[in-house]
């Protein structure tokens, strides 16, 4: 079943499947949410509703947890997520220029999605690869020692 179908009409079966594999204890909640967020690109309201009845936890409780963690996305976003590290080590290594170039190139402010649904721009705290700052992450790929003039070529890899 393609991802769109699984995450929409098949969401009940999907959530039940993940719970069956991961477990239904309270301590399994974050691993379950991480899997839904990865497989469906975000955690929809319907997914929270299904999970609520599976785990016998209030929807509000699940929503509170899902919105606490940066890696759990609760809103639809573009096909590719561009993340820029705004922490001090990258800032000192030339991050200011990169961030400006990135915003100009994409025409987006942090948190926004492009009209063609291709990009969503996020800022992030440290990614732990400070040795190669400034760092830009596109989906799960990390680019280090980035120069402003390299950005167009990097973004070209993602359609």
């Amino acid at each position, binding site marked *: 079943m393609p991802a769109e179908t699984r995450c929409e009409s098949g969401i009940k079966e999907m959530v039940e499947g993940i719970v069956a594999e991961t477990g239904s*204890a*309270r*301590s*399994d*909640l*974050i*691993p379950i*949410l*991480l899997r839904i967020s990865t497989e469906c690109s975000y955690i929809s309201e319907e997914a929270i509703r299904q999970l609520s009845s599976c785990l016998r936890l209030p929807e509000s409780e699940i929503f*509170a*947890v899902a919105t*606490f*963690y*940066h*890696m*759990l996305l609760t809103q639809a976003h573009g096909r590719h997520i561009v993340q820029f590290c*705004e*922490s*001090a*080590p990258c*800032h*000192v*290594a030339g991050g200011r220029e990169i961030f400006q170039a990135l915003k100009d190139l994409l025409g987006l*402010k942090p948190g926004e999605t492009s009209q063609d649904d291709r990009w969503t721009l996020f800022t992030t*705290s*440290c*990614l*732990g*690869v*400070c*040795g190669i*700052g400034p760092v830009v992450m596109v989906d*799960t790929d990390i680019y280090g020692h980035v120069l402003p003039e390299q950005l167009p070529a990097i973004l070209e890899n993602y359609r």
Partner: protein
Amino acid sequence: MSIIRSLVLISHDPESKLLGSEAIFAAFIEQLHHYDLQDEVSVSYATDIGQSAASPLVIIYPEAVIYGPIKPEDVPHIVEEHLYKGRIVEEKRAPTKGLSGKVAWLPVRKGSNPAENRIVLRNIGVIDPESIEDSLNQNGYEGLAIALTMSPEDVIKVISASGLRGRGGAGFPTGMKWGFVRKATGAKKYVICNADESEPGTFKDRMILEGDPQSIIEAMLIAGYAIGASEGYIYIRGEYQLAIERITKAIQQAQKIGFLGEGILGSSFNFTLHLHSGAGAYVCGEETALLESIEGKRGEPRTRPPYPTTQGLFQKPTLINNVETLANVPAILRNGAAWYHGFGTESSPGTKVYTMLGNVNVTGLVEVPMGITLREVVSIYARGMKKAPLKFAQTGGSSGSIIPASLQDTPMDFDSYRTAGLSLGSGALLICDDENCIVDIVKVLTNFFRVECCGKCAPCRVGTQRMYTTMTRITEGKGKMGDLEELELISDTLTNISNCGLGETAGTPVRDMLKHFRAEVEAHIKLGICPTGICPMVAEVPEFV
């Protein structure tokens, strides 16, 4: 000075010499000139590498990849792939089995890497991290075997006597913490490895988890035996995908051999280990927030007391140690407490891993004895400042101290730093030259806390936001002198009444800025200029105009 980014060592013992090490040396020099890399790569002879089966050997640092046996005709391919394109030539790697533990003796001289004292980074880049056999060849699990011959109380005595202190930032005596959990009442106890390393500029724990995962499992087993726990969790931040994969594999291998499970090494000690992935929240590195997160809740720090040592995970007594702290444990068991006192200072024995970042020639990890000074790290290990002189360094990520150049000769250990009103933190060293504006950097740091604050307690929720808006106003040329008193008040309030360590330390950069660089801040306000020309000094035009 030129920056050496790689170091090539060629074994030059009599056997290697017979097998052509001099021709290999010449071939490297020739090929490096061919790619115009002669100024970036230094080539030296090494005397005793201790692995004659694969000689002649070639070791390339900083990756510490060992190639062997190597013939002169292999050199062009290695230079092109490894040094020019940055790809390791897998088929030429020396078999890692049979390593004697001595890796390479690095002479301290110009153009080569200065000697480090590697205890926790001992195996990094030397062994195949996905092979438990490699770890065993390097005395892996020997510390556990020694511990199991002792009583749990004696193991704690050894750790206490070693003087090991927590490397997560606070410097709490590790042996004392173990003792607290040992004495806590309750049949069920837990060991947790805090691998939620999120301080900006810190990636030492990631390197240990990725490069030597078995050492952490071994240390957790020793800790579990000592405190009487049969279950443990490694909490790794979600962004560290490779570390998560490596630890998952390492746990499977340790289970297969029987280091995890029941009746470990023929004793009556049982231990199971779980991996828990974080999902992106800086505050979860705070130990009680980490517990909440493992329990499947929002990562909001708990009110203390009770402390985790008596009521931790699932309300059971819990030991929580940082990755680097644990990585010291097997070595202490193997070599004894007295040996550990041979490194570092009287009250802070051992080594510390620093991450060197910023405006220096060499960035990356370095493991050196406690008590070394910032000046030594910058001039010896970071090979000096890149362009302009040192203005300040920031230790320990966002929550650490700002050390002005005038304090760079303070020994870096827990107590000397505390006496000087500084904190060592997690060991990140963001080294900044005098082209950086202190106001600009502190604005970035206050933004970090504003974003990462969990929102549970009001002082932190309101204070971090207020510090950021005030700092932003100063960078826009709209600051008032009254802002400085307000910043002081906020940072003191944060320290005094916040619920957890995040809030308590959030004001440190602001306080240090006002203490050491007040004139520069006042120039922004009184004269309306940024002395380094970095701050915009005008308000950014709002989008709707």
